[in-house]
């Protein structure tokens, strides 16, 4: 049952990330990559909150559903690095470098912020 809920939560997280990217692309076609950065930042922020708040054994299933499922689906490592690699190949060096450096820094800040709010 937990596996099904983790998978469903992951699907939900992926759909939220897709909606971020869809609405960003619709309003500003070149800003889609930054929507992925925002989704990753939001996902790691929620993960920081959940990692701190859901620590008891009774929370283990909820923790798995939220952290592995929803946050795992909301965030993506593959697009976060594949897109900058492709951008640098197309000679968009500054854009690629900005994406590669911004994502981990922003995610670190959001994870700490999430933990601080949970505290």
């Amino acid at each position, binding site marked *: 049952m937990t*596996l099904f809920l*983790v*998978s*469903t*939560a*992951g*699907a*939900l*997280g*992926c*759909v939220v*990330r*897709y*909606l971020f*990217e*869809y609405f960003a*692309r*619709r309003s500003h*076609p070149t800003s*889609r990559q930054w929507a992925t950065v925002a989704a*990753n930042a939001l*996902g*790691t922020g*929620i*993960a*920081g909150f959940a*990692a701190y708040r859901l620590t008891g*054994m009774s929370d283990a299933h909820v923790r*798995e559903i939220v*952290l*592995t*499922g929803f*946050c*795992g*689906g*909301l*965030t*993506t*490592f*593959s*697009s*976060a*690095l*594949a*897109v*900058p*690699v*492709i951008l640098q*190949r197309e000679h968009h060096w500054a854009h690629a470098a900005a994406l*590669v450096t911004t*994502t*981990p820094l922003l*995610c*670190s800040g959001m*994870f700490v912020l999430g*933990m601080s709010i949970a505290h």
Partner: protein
Amino acid sequence: MRSHITLSPKQLGLAMLIVALGGGAGTLIRDLLLKINVYAVPRGSAVNPSTDWTHQIPWVLLAINTIGVYVATDLLRHRLRHHDPSDPMRLVLVTGFLGGLTSYSGLFSDFAAIWHLSIGGCLLVAVGAIAAGLFAGVLGLGRHRRRA
């Protein structure tokens, strides 16, 4: 599905369903692989947690993420190069499946565990994870270049 930037409500609903199917499958596989890792490589118990930071390195998630970057780069530069972001194949494979399979938040949860044991070790693993991902992406491009 036609390649417009703005989708009709019906097209958007279909795109969300496709992403959900791919994402659910990717998340399920990641969860199963991580569970195998927990049983195969014990990280200490809740009573006696391991104090060696190297035991906390999330090898399986690092491998999943690195392979995910390689496959995503290869798909986006080769098979799906001329596909619109709303193309069903791109939605199910890249946005859905690989997005669900790989995880940034999972890495940070594991980094937090390493941070408590060794700050230097945590930074080393974090930089290594990004470097491995970039290297995998470049390999994905290289494969494309050899084929072209």
